[in-house]
């Protein structure tokens, strides 16, 4: 993905191993959650090594807990650095969220008030992480379900300031923008239009579902469905403005046949090609 034009990738689950390994789509890359591979040895590590030998791999962490009011877990960071050293990922990314608190790990991406104190803490945690990994990381905009009091910063300004202070890049998840805007009542288009173009190292596209009780009033970032048409439209709007960037189709639940994911990925790939030609 470095010198060549940006291409589209797929999140990778163990059940797709054989097909992923054999697939020869031009420009195809894969993204995994590193937490599933931070083990001493065995078939999981061997599997990731085999995929990496054939395709570029990106590491998308869910547990550095950068927004916790504490430094990242040193043992976890050391294991992550070890994996990154071995895999040589095209990108390591994380979230503007927290999940680890006083020794308990809560498997979700939890919210916080964007205060000056939070900015200082998170900038420090990003710096610690980038030092340990000896690389620039990208930070993803979160999904929102709550109106939190006490925000001193707008989210885009907050991300921009983190990038300015630490040199980190940003990962723009278009589905998160869409559903957060719907859930909290703001304009997804305005958010997409204001996002700092230069910092975007990767784009995520995923599916969402209405909450089982509240329906369309609360959209959940479930990664269990195809990318919605409204999210595709936002994506086209984004890349028309900022140009093509590596784009991931994320799918974590209700896994379809590999060919279906490849079709979705081709849709993103085609849009990137068109944008690429337009920008050239």
């Amino acid at each position, binding site marked *: 993905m470095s010198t060549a034009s940006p291409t589209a990738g797929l999140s990778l689950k163990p059940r797709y191993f054989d097909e992923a390994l054999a697939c020869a789509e031009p420009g195809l890359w894969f993204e995994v959650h590193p*937490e*599933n591979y*931070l*083990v*001493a*040895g*065995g*078939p*999981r*590590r*061997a599997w990731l090594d085999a995929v990496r030998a054939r395709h570029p791999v990106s590491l998308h962490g*869910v*547990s550095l807990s950068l927004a*916790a*009011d*504490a430094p990242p877990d040193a043992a*976890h960071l050391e294991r992550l650095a070890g994996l990154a050293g071995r895999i040589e990922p095209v990108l390591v990314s994380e979230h503007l969220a*927290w*999940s*680890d*608190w*006083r*020794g*308990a*790990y*809560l*498997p*979700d991406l*939890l*919210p*916080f*008030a964007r*205060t000056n*104190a*939070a900015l200082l*803490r998170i900038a420090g945690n990003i710096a610690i992480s980038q030092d340990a990994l000896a690389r620039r990381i990208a930070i993803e905009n979160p999904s*929102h*379900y*709550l*109106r*939190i*009091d*006490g925000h001193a910063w707008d989210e885009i300004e907050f991300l921009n300031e983190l990038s300015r202070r630490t040199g980190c890049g940003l990962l723009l998840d278009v589905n998160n923008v869409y559903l957060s805007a719907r*859930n909290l009542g703001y304009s997804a288009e305005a958010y997409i239009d204001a996002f700092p173009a230069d910092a975007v190292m990767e784009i995520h596209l995923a599916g969402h579902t209405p*909450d089982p*009780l*509240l329906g369309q*009033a*609360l959209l*959940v970032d479930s990664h269990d469905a195809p990318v919605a048409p409204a999210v595709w439209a936002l994506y086209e709007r984004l890349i028309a403005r900022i140009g093509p960037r590596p784009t991931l189709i994320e799918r974590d639940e209700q896994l379809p046949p590999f060919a279906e994911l490849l079709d979705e990925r081709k849709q993103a790939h085609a849009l990137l090609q068109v944008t690429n030609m337009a920008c050239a």
Partner: protein
Amino acid sequence: MNTALSRFQDGFVQAILHPHGDVPDDLRALVRQPGFAVYRNTVLKGCIDSLQANYPAVLRLVGEDWFRAAAAIHVRAHPPRDARLLLYGADFPGFLSDFAPAADLPYLRGVAMLDRFWTESHVAADAVTLAPAALSGLPPEQLGELVLTPHPAARWAWFDDQPIYTLWQRNRGCGAEGVECSESGEELVWTGEGALLTRPAGAVTWTALDAGGCAFLDACAAGRPLAEAADAALARQPASDLARLMASLLDAGAFRGAPACADSTLTKEPA
């Protein structure tokens, strides 16, 4: 740490894990928003799904409803300590043995232990296994002085009075990785059983192991030479067939292999 962010995070965790517990005043309104349930449900579901994935034989024995209800209680009392959820649930077997609703299922803890052994074997460090032919031709006295180290992926246990191995392997891995669950009509023989899990060729495999074999491996793991391990096996089970035991352990890949070029030093006593 008593910053506003720390206090928020303390209260948020409390409200996620203990929905009927006390919530700090400044978080009450937040927790009442419908969106809070998304976080609570995602956290709980993620933890329970992980336990369900990590304890498939227990799941099959008790059924999904029972399992998820028990798992929810366990998750609230013992949330994950580590983001590697494939390792979550080390204390689940112990939880099951103390769990009142499981009192009439005394075999659950043992079955859960073997599920846990599978996970530990699956993620253990890579190492060469000692080839079955490696020891052939050694004179008995040299063999007796040899210290063999169990492979990092080897796990074994003996269960008194309960056919844990049969129960476990009949319920483990149905439909996954080509493993068939046995619907054998054969009645369980209610007697003690042991198991050995190894990872000889990249995937976890298992075999029955008797009490003498488990005592033998315990001695090897404690760094004792084969002659003493043999004594331990015979003490535990006087009828142990040591030659057959050794052959089956080697065949299963139970020992760490010596570096190829060090074969000649394998048999020598340290100076």
